Protein backbone atom coordinates (compact mmCIF):
# COMPACT_ATOMS: atom_id res chain seq x y z
CA UNK A 1 0.00 0.00 0.00
CA UNK A 2 1.79 3.17 -1.13
CA UNK A 3 1.99 6.22 1.07
CA UNK A 4 1.01 9.56 -0.45
CA UNK A 5 2.98 11.76 1.97
CA UNK A 6 6.77 11.88 1.68
CA UNK A 7 8.38 9.65 4.26
CA UNK A 8 11.87 10.58 5.43
CA UNK A 9 14.32 8.09 6.84
CA UNK A 10 13.99 8.68 10.53
CA UNK A 11 15.41 7.70 13.95
CA UNK A 12 13.23 8.23 16.98
CA UNK A 13 15.37 8.99 20.01
CA UNK A 14 14.72 10.07 23.56
CA UNK A 15 16.46 12.05 26.25
CA UNK A 16 18.03 9.88 28.93
CA UNK A 17 18.78 12.00 32.03
CA UNK A 18 21.85 11.14 34.11
CA UNK A 19 21.28 8.98 37.20
CA UNK A 20 19.36 10.95 39.80
CA UNK A 21 18.44 13.77 37.39
CA UNK A 22 14.83 14.53 36.40
CA UNK A 23 13.36 15.37 33.02
CA UNK A 24 11.64 18.75 33.23
CA UNK A 25 10.13 21.28 30.85
CA UNK A 26 13.39 23.22 31.16
CA UNK A 27 15.25 20.20 29.74
CA UNK A 28 13.11 20.49 26.61
CA UNK A 29 13.77 24.24 26.35
CA UNK A 30 17.51 23.52 26.62
CA UNK A 31 17.22 20.90 23.85
CA UNK A 32 15.47 23.45 21.59
CA UNK A 33 18.41 25.79 22.31
CA UNK A 34 20.92 23.09 21.42
CA UNK A 35 19.30 22.72 17.99
CA UNK A 36 19.29 26.48 17.48
CA UNK A 37 22.98 26.56 18.48
CA UNK A 38 23.63 24.29 15.47
CA UNK A 39 21.79 26.83 13.28
CA UNK A 40 18.60 24.76 13.11
CA UNK A 41 15.65 26.79 11.77
CA UNK A 42 12.31 26.24 13.49
CA UNK A 43 9.77 25.29 10.79
CA UNK A 44 6.64 24.40 12.72
CA UNK A 45 4.88 22.22 15.24
CA UNK A 46 4.27 18.49 15.13
CA UNK A 47 2.13 16.03 17.03
CA UNK A 48 1.93 12.24 17.18
CA UNK A 49 -0.57 10.26 19.22
CA UNK A 50 0.03 6.70 20.38
CA UNK A 51 -2.76 4.69 21.98
CA UNK A 52 -2.98 1.41 23.81
CA UNK A 53 -6.15 -0.66 23.40
CA UNK A 54 -7.28 -3.72 25.35
CA UNK A 55 -9.97 -6.28 24.43
CA UNK A 56 -13.40 -4.99 25.30
CA UNK A 57 -15.27 -7.24 27.72
CA UNK A 58 -18.03 -6.24 30.06
CA UNK A 59 -17.41 -9.39 32.01
CA UNK A 60 -13.70 -9.93 32.61
CA UNK A 61 -14.33 -13.68 32.92
CA UNK A 62 -15.18 -13.77 29.21
CA UNK A 63 -12.03 -14.66 27.35
CA UNK A 64 -11.82 -13.49 23.73
CA UNK A 65 -9.50 -15.20 21.35
CA UNK A 66 -7.69 -12.08 20.22
CA UNK A 67 -4.43 -10.20 20.81
CA UNK A 68 -4.33 -8.90 24.37
CA UNK A 69 -2.93 -5.55 23.30
CA UNK A 70 -3.47 -3.38 20.24
CA UNK A 71 -1.37 -0.27 19.80
CA UNK A 72 -2.19 2.58 17.42
CA UNK A 73 -0.25 5.56 16.06
CA UNK A 74 -1.51 8.69 14.25
CA UNK A 75 0.71 11.40 12.75
CA UNK A 76 -0.55 14.98 12.47
CA UNK A 77 1.58 15.49 9.35
CA UNK A 78 0.07 12.39 7.68
CA UNK A 79 -3.46 12.45 9.05
CA UNK A 80 -5.00 10.37 6.26
CA UNK A 81 -3.34 7.22 7.63
CA UNK A 82 -3.45 5.28 10.88
CA UNK A 83 -1.04 2.60 12.06
CA UNK A 84 -1.57 -0.42 14.28
CA UNK A 85 1.14 -2.47 15.96
CA UNK A 86 0.69 -5.91 17.50
CA UNK A 87 3.88 -6.53 19.44
CA UNK A 88 3.27 -10.17 20.38
CA UNK A 89 2.41 -10.96 16.73
CA UNK A 90 5.29 -8.80 15.40
CA UNK A 91 3.03 -6.91 13.02
CA UNK A 92 2.69 -3.30 11.78
CA UNK A 93 -0.42 -2.45 9.76
CA UNK A 94 -1.03 0.67 7.69
CA UNK A 95 -4.62 1.76 7.02
CA UNK A 96 -6.69 4.79 6.08
CA UNK A 97 -7.66 6.81 9.14
CA UNK A 98 -11.25 5.56 8.69
CA UNK A 99 -10.05 2.24 10.17
CA UNK A 100 -10.56 3.85 13.59
CA UNK A 101 -14.29 4.19 12.90
CA UNK A 102 -14.41 0.54 11.81
CA UNK A 103 -12.59 -0.65 14.93
CA UNK A 104 -14.99 1.37 17.07
CA UNK A 105 -17.98 -0.25 15.39
CA UNK A 106 -16.51 -3.72 15.92
CA UNK A 107 -16.24 -3.05 19.67
CA UNK A 108 -13.53 -5.65 20.15
CA UNK A 109 -11.05 -3.21 21.72
CA UNK A 110 -11.39 -0.20 23.97
CA UNK A 111 -8.86 2.58 24.44
CA UNK A 112 -6.98 2.16 27.71
CA UNK A 113 -4.62 5.11 27.51
CA UNK A 114 -3.09 7.49 24.99
CA UNK A 115 0.18 9.35 24.91
CA UNK A 116 0.71 12.57 22.96
CA UNK A 117 4.14 13.46 21.60
CA UNK A 118 4.30 17.11 20.57
CA UNK A 119 6.82 19.86 20.03
CA UNK A 120 8.69 21.87 17.41
CA UNK A 121 10.51 20.79 14.28
CA UNK A 122 13.65 22.31 12.78
CA UNK A 123 15.43 22.21 9.43
CA UNK A 124 19.20 21.82 9.41
CA UNK A 125 20.51 21.26 5.89
CA UNK A 126 19.25 17.84 4.70
CA UNK A 127 18.29 16.94 8.26
CA UNK A 128 14.99 17.62 9.94
CA UNK A 129 14.93 17.54 13.73
CA UNK A 130 11.99 17.19 16.05
CA UNK A 131 12.01 17.70 19.79
CA UNK A 132 8.99 17.45 22.01
CA UNK A 133 7.39 16.25 25.18
CA UNK A 134 5.53 13.02 25.84
CA UNK A 135 2.46 13.33 28.05
CA UNK A 136 -0.46 11.03 28.78
CA UNK A 137 -3.58 12.54 27.25
CA UNK A 138 -5.44 12.32 30.59
CA UNK A 139 -2.66 14.05 32.54
CA UNK A 140 -0.29 16.91 31.86
CA UNK A 141 2.81 15.65 33.67
CA UNK A 142 5.86 14.99 31.55
CA UNK A 143 6.59 11.31 30.82
CA UNK A 144 9.66 11.88 28.72
CA UNK A 145 11.29 13.86 25.93
CA UNK A 146 11.33 12.61 22.36
CA UNK A 147 13.86 13.62 19.73
CA UNK A 148 13.66 12.63 16.10
CA UNK A 149 16.22 12.95 13.34
CA UNK A 150 14.99 12.69 9.74
CA UNK A 151 17.22 12.60 6.72
CA UNK A 152 15.72 13.31 3.32
CA UNK A 153 17.74 12.16 0.32
CA UNK A 154 18.21 8.44 1.09
CA UNK A 155 15.56 5.96 2.15
CA UNK A 156 17.67 2.87 2.90
CA UNK A 157 18.12 2.33 6.63
CA UNK A 158 21.50 0.62 6.28
CA UNK A 159 22.87 3.34 3.98
CA UNK A 160 21.98 6.12 6.42
CA UNK A 161 22.89 4.31 9.65
CA UNK A 162 26.42 5.73 9.93
CA UNK A 163 25.42 9.20 8.75
CA UNK A 164 22.61 9.34 11.30
CA UNK A 165 24.93 8.22 14.10
CA UNK A 166 27.49 10.87 13.16
CA UNK A 167 24.77 13.51 13.23
CA UNK A 168 23.48 12.35 16.63
CA UNK A 169 27.07 12.47 17.96
CA UNK A 170 27.36 16.05 16.70
CA UNK A 171 24.08 16.97 18.39
CA UNK A 172 25.25 15.30 21.60
CA UNK A 173 28.37 17.50 21.49
CA UNK A 174 26.21 20.63 21.16
CA UNK A 175 24.16 19.43 24.14
CA UNK A 176 27.23 18.65 26.24
CA UNK A 177 28.52 22.16 25.50
CA UNK A 178 25.41 23.46 27.32
CA UNK A 179 26.35 21.36 30.38
CA UNK A 180 23.11 19.38 30.24
CA UNK A 181 23.04 16.31 32.43
CA UNK A 182 22.07 13.38 30.22
CA UNK A 183 22.43 11.89 26.77
CA UNK A 184 20.53 11.11 23.57
CA UNK A 185 19.45 7.49 23.52
CA UNK A 186 18.07 5.24 20.78
CA UNK A 187 15.62 2.34 21.13
CA UNK A 188 15.84 0.80 17.68
CA UNK A 189 13.31 -1.96 17.03
CA UNK A 190 14.34 -4.95 14.96
CA UNK A 191 12.48 -3.91 11.80
CA UNK A 192 13.07 -7.25 10.05
CA UNK A 193 11.27 -9.05 12.90
CA UNK A 194 8.19 -7.04 11.97
CA UNK A 195 8.61 -7.90 8.27
CA UNK A 196 9.61 -4.31 7.48
CA UNK A 197 12.14 -3.92 4.70
CA UNK A 198 15.32 -1.84 4.55
CA UNK A 199 13.47 0.80 2.50
CA UNK A 200 12.13 3.29 4.99
CA UNK A 201 8.35 3.83 5.34
CA UNK A 202 5.88 5.43 7.76
CA UNK A 203 5.43 1.96 9.26
CA UNK A 204 9.04 2.12 10.49
CA UNK A 205 8.35 5.46 12.19
CA UNK A 206 5.12 4.12 13.72
CA UNK A 207 6.96 1.13 15.17
CA UNK A 208 9.66 3.35 16.67
CA UNK A 209 7.05 5.54 18.38
CA UNK A 210 5.30 2.46 19.76
CA UNK A 211 8.58 1.24 21.24
CA UNK A 212 9.13 4.66 22.81
CA UNK A 213 5.53 4.76 24.09
CA UNK A 214 6.01 1.37 25.77
CA UNK A 215 9.37 2.47 27.17
CA UNK A 216 7.96 5.67 28.72
CA UNK A 217 5.06 3.71 30.20
CA UNK A 218 7.41 1.14 31.72
CA UNK A 219 9.61 3.94 33.13
CA UNK A 220 6.67 5.68 34.79
CA UNK A 221 5.44 2.37 36.26
CA UNK A 222 8.91 1.79 37.70
CA UNK A 223 9.06 5.28 39.24
Amino acid sequence: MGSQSVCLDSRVLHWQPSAGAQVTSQTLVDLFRSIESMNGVRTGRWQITAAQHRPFTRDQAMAIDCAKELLGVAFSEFASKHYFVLRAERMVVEADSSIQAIMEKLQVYRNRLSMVFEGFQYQLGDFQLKAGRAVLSQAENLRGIVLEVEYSPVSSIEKTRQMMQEFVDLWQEAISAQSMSGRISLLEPNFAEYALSDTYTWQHTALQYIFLFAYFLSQSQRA
Partner: protein
Amino acid sequence: MECVVQGIIEAQHVEALDVLLQGLCEGQREAVKTHEICLKSKPISSFADSRALESLETGTVASELHLLCDLSKRPHIWTVKHIGGAMRGTGAEQLPALVRNIVESKMSNNALRFFYAVGYKMDYELLRDGFAYRFQRAFPITVTVTSVCRLPKQHSIDEATPVTPNIQLVEVTAPATADNFSDVVPAISSFAEHLSPLVNLSKPGSFAGIVSTASTAAASLLSRSDRLEHRV
Protein backbone atom coordinates in the same frame (compact mmCIF):
# COMPACT_ATOMS: atom_id res chain seq x y z
CA MET B 1 -23.45 5.58 3.76
CA GLU B 2 -24.30 4.16 0.38
CA CYS B 3 -27.43 3.59 -1.69
CA VAL B 4 -27.64 0.32 -3.55
CA VAL B 5 -29.85 -1.66 -5.92
CA GLN B 6 -29.06 -5.11 -7.31
CA GLY B 7 -30.26 -7.44 -10.00
CA ILE B 8 -29.25 -10.45 -12.03
CA ILE B 9 -28.69 -10.90 -15.74
CA GLU B 10 -28.23 -13.95 -17.92
CA ALA B 11 -24.61 -14.26 -18.99
CA GLN B 12 -25.63 -14.25 -22.67
CA HIS B 13 -26.92 -10.66 -22.27
CA VAL B 14 -23.87 -9.24 -20.47
CA GLU B 15 -22.32 -8.10 -23.76
CA ALA B 16 -25.45 -6.09 -24.56
CA LEU B 17 -25.40 -4.55 -21.06
CA ASP B 18 -21.75 -3.62 -21.64
CA VAL B 19 -22.75 -1.87 -24.88
CA LEU B 20 -25.61 -0.07 -23.14
CA LEU B 21 -23.37 1.11 -20.27
CA GLN B 22 -20.66 2.21 -22.68
CA GLY B 23 -23.24 4.33 -24.49
CA LEU B 24 -24.36 5.89 -21.23
CA CYS B 25 -20.97 6.81 -19.83
CA GLU B 26 -18.66 7.18 -22.83
CA GLY B 27 -16.39 4.28 -22.05
CA GLN B 28 -15.17 4.57 -18.45
CA ARG B 29 -14.88 0.79 -18.19
CA GLU B 30 -12.72 -0.91 -15.56
CA ALA B 31 -11.93 -4.56 -15.06
CA VAL B 32 -13.10 -6.01 -11.74
CA LYS B 33 -11.36 -8.97 -10.16
CA THR B 34 -11.88 -8.93 -6.42
CA HIS B 35 -11.12 -11.58 -3.85
CA GLU B 36 -13.69 -11.05 -1.13
CA ILE B 37 -13.28 -12.55 2.33
CA CYS B 38 -16.19 -12.30 4.74
CA LEU B 39 -15.01 -12.24 8.34
CA LYS B 40 -16.78 -13.10 11.56
CA SER B 41 -15.69 -12.87 15.18
CA LYS B 42 -14.21 -16.01 16.68
CA PRO B 43 -16.83 -17.81 18.78
CA ILE B 44 -14.29 -19.23 21.23
CA SER B 45 -16.23 -17.85 24.17
CA SER B 46 -19.69 -16.56 24.81
CA PHE B 47 -18.52 -13.22 23.33
CA ALA B 48 -20.12 -13.77 19.92
CA ASP B 49 -23.32 -15.11 21.48
CA SER B 50 -23.51 -12.11 23.79
CA ARG B 51 -23.09 -9.79 20.79
CA ALA B 52 -25.90 -11.60 18.94
CA LEU B 53 -28.12 -11.39 22.02
CA GLU B 54 -27.30 -7.71 22.43
CA SER B 55 -28.24 -7.20 18.79
CA LEU B 56 -31.63 -8.85 19.38
CA GLU B 57 -32.23 -6.82 22.52
CA THR B 58 -31.39 -3.48 20.96
CA GLY B 59 -33.04 -4.22 17.64
CA THR B 60 -29.89 -3.33 15.71
CA VAL B 61 -29.09 -5.17 12.50
CA ALA B 62 -25.97 -7.33 12.54
CA SER B 63 -23.15 -5.79 10.56
CA GLU B 64 -20.75 -7.49 8.17
CA LEU B 65 -17.01 -7.17 7.82
CA HIS B 66 -15.58 -7.85 4.37
CA LEU B 67 -11.95 -7.82 3.35
CA LEU B 68 -11.50 -7.10 -0.36
CA CYS B 69 -8.35 -7.65 -2.37
CA ASP B 70 -8.37 -5.88 -5.73
CA LEU B 71 -6.52 -8.32 -7.99
CA SER B 72 -6.91 -6.14 -11.09
CA LYS B 73 -4.17 -3.80 -9.89
CA ARG B 74 -0.47 -4.34 -9.14
CA PRO B 75 0.38 -4.33 -6.31
CA HIS B 76 -2.93 -5.72 -5.10
CA ILE B 77 -4.97 -3.26 -3.06
CA TRP B 78 -6.55 -4.42 0.20
CA THR B 79 -9.65 -2.73 1.56
CA VAL B 80 -11.69 -3.54 4.64
CA LYS B 81 -15.38 -2.74 4.36
CA HIS B 82 -17.74 -2.54 7.32
CA ILE B 83 -21.30 -2.92 6.11
CA GLY B 84 -23.72 -1.69 8.73
CA GLY B 85 -27.39 -2.44 9.00
CA ALA B 86 -29.80 -1.03 6.44
CA MET B 87 -31.80 2.04 7.30
CA ARG B 88 -35.10 0.97 8.84
CA GLY B 89 -38.56 2.38 9.34
CA THR B 90 -41.60 2.99 7.15
CA GLY B 91 -39.91 5.79 5.22
CA ALA B 92 -36.86 3.62 4.45
CA GLU B 93 -39.05 0.70 3.34
CA GLN B 94 -40.75 2.89 0.77
CA LEU B 95 -37.46 3.99 -0.78
CA PRO B 96 -36.66 2.24 -4.09
CA ALA B 97 -33.00 1.71 -3.04
CA LEU B 98 -31.42 0.29 0.08
CA VAL B 99 -29.59 2.85 2.21
CA ARG B 100 -26.96 1.43 4.52
CA ASN B 101 -23.95 2.49 6.52
CA ILE B 102 -20.60 1.72 4.94
CA VAL B 103 -17.13 2.48 6.24
CA GLU B 104 -14.13 1.54 4.10
CA SER B 105 -10.42 1.69 4.75
CA LYS B 106 -7.53 0.73 2.51
CA MET B 107 -5.01 -1.42 4.34
CA SER B 108 -1.53 -2.86 3.95
CA ASN B 109 -1.25 -6.39 2.56
CA ASN B 110 -1.12 -8.00 6.01
CA ALA B 111 -4.78 -7.04 6.62
CA LEU B 112 -6.06 -10.64 6.79
CA ARG B 113 -3.41 -11.63 9.35
CA PHE B 114 -4.31 -8.52 11.33
CA PHE B 115 -8.01 -9.40 11.53
CA TYR B 116 -7.17 -12.98 12.49
CA ALA B 117 -5.05 -11.55 15.33
CA VAL B 118 -7.77 -9.20 16.59
CA GLY B 119 -10.38 -11.91 16.96
CA TYR B 120 -11.84 -12.57 13.51
CA LYS B 121 -11.84 -15.61 11.28
CA MET B 122 -12.90 -16.30 7.73
CA ASP B 123 -16.58 -17.09 7.33
CA TYR B 124 -16.50 -17.58 3.56
CA GLU B 125 -14.65 -16.24 0.54
CA LEU B 126 -15.47 -15.69 -3.10
CA LEU B 127 -14.11 -14.11 -6.25
CA ARG B 128 -15.95 -11.44 -8.21
CA ASP B 129 -14.87 -11.29 -11.83
CA GLY B 130 -16.27 -8.82 -14.34
CA PHE B 131 -16.29 -5.11 -15.09
CA ALA B 132 -17.49 -1.78 -13.72
CA TYR B 133 -18.50 1.62 -15.06
CA ARG B 134 -18.26 4.83 -13.09
CA PHE B 135 -20.67 7.62 -13.93
CA GLN B 136 -20.16 11.18 -12.77
CA ARG B 137 -23.64 12.68 -12.79
CA ALA B 138 -25.19 14.79 -10.03
CA PHE B 139 -23.87 12.00 -7.77
CA PRO B 140 -21.15 9.48 -8.61
CA ILE B 141 -22.79 6.17 -9.57
CA THR B 142 -20.94 2.88 -10.02
CA VAL B 143 -22.31 -0.11 -11.90
CA THR B 144 -20.56 -3.45 -11.43
CA VAL B 145 -21.35 -6.55 -13.45
CA THR B 146 -19.69 -9.62 -12.02
CA SER B 147 -19.69 -13.35 -12.05
CA VAL B 148 -19.59 -14.60 -8.47
CA CYS B 149 -17.16 -17.52 -8.16
CA ARG B 150 -16.59 -19.99 -5.36
CA LEU B 151 -13.11 -21.13 -4.40
CA PRO B 152 -12.83 -24.93 -4.08
CA LYS B 153 -9.90 -24.64 -1.64
CA GLN B 154 -8.92 -21.82 0.71
CA HIS B 155 -7.60 -18.80 -1.25
CA SER B 156 -7.41 -20.88 -4.50
CA ILE B 157 -8.12 -17.91 -6.78
CA ASP B 158 -6.85 -19.71 -9.87
CA GLU B 159 -9.36 -22.54 -9.39
CA ALA B 160 -12.39 -20.26 -8.96
CA THR B 161 -15.56 -21.50 -10.62
CA PRO B 162 -18.79 -19.49 -11.12
CA VAL B 163 -21.51 -20.29 -8.58
CA THR B 164 -24.13 -19.78 -11.32
CA PRO B 165 -22.37 -19.96 -14.72
CA ASN B 166 -25.38 -18.57 -16.61
CA ILE B 167 -26.18 -15.71 -14.26
CA GLN B 168 -24.21 -12.58 -13.35
CA LEU B 169 -24.79 -10.03 -10.62
CA VAL B 170 -25.45 -6.36 -11.44
CA GLU B 171 -25.01 -3.86 -8.64
CA VAL B 172 -25.58 -0.10 -8.80
CA THR B 173 -24.19 1.91 -5.89
CA ALA B 174 -23.71 5.55 -4.98
CA PRO B 175 -22.08 7.08 -1.91
CA ALA B 176 -24.44 9.13 0.24
CA THR B 177 -24.63 10.99 3.53
CA ALA B 178 -27.39 11.39 6.09
CA ASP B 179 -28.04 14.81 4.54
CA ASN B 180 -28.26 13.85 0.88
CA PHE B 181 -29.48 10.23 0.67
CA SER B 182 -33.02 11.44 -0.14
CA ASP B 183 -31.57 12.99 -3.32
CA VAL B 184 -29.22 10.11 -4.12
CA VAL B 185 -31.96 7.43 -3.96
CA PRO B 186 -34.08 9.03 -6.77
CA ALA B 187 -30.89 9.52 -8.82
CA ILE B 188 -29.96 5.87 -8.53
CA SER B 189 -33.53 4.81 -9.19
CA SER B 190 -33.77 6.92 -12.32
CA PHE B 191 -30.41 5.57 -13.49
CA ALA B 192 -31.67 2.01 -12.95
CA GLU B 193 -34.49 2.78 -15.41
CA HIS B 194 -31.90 3.09 -18.20
CA LEU B 195 -30.89 -0.52 -17.58
CA SER B 196 -34.44 -1.87 -17.24
CA PRO B 197 -34.62 -3.39 -20.78
CA LEU B 198 -31.95 -5.86 -19.66
CA VAL B 199 -32.02 -6.07 -15.86
CA ASN B 200 -34.55 -5.60 -13.07
CA LEU B 201 -32.87 -3.71 -10.26
CA SER B 202 -34.28 -3.71 -6.74
CA LYS B 203 -33.14 -3.58 -3.12
CA PRO B 204 -30.76 -6.39 -2.12
CA GLY B 205 -32.82 -9.19 -0.64
CA SER B 206 -35.97 -8.44 -2.65
CA PHE B 207 -35.34 -10.55 -5.73
CA ALA B 208 -36.87 -9.06 -8.88
CA GLY B 209 -35.97 -11.89 -11.30
CA ILE B 210 -34.67 -11.68 -14.84
CA VAL B 211 -36.20 -9.56 -17.60
CA SER B 212 -38.28 -11.83 -19.83
CA THR B 213 -37.83 -9.59 -22.89
CA ALA B 214 -34.08 -9.16 -22.37
CA SER B 215 -33.26 -11.27 -25.47
CA THR B 216 -35.08 -8.87 -27.79
CA ALA B 217 -33.55 -5.80 -26.14
CA ALA B 218 -30.08 -7.38 -26.23
CA ALA B 219 -30.40 -8.27 -29.93
CA SER B 220 -31.51 -4.73 -30.71
CA LEU B 221 -28.63 -3.18 -28.73
CA LEU B 222 -26.01 -5.43 -30.31
CA SER B 223 -27.23 -4.87 -33.85
CA ARG B 224 -27.34 -1.10 -33.28
CA SER B 225 -23.79 -1.30 -31.93
CA ASP B 226 -22.68 -3.30 -35.00
CA ARG B 227 -24.24 -0.75 -37.35
CA LEU B 228 -22.43 2.08 -35.53
CA GLU B 229 -19.10 0.25 -35.75
CA HIS B 230 -19.57 -0.30 -39.51
CA ARG B 231 -20.38 3.38 -39.99
CA VAL B 232 -17.18 4.37 -38.09
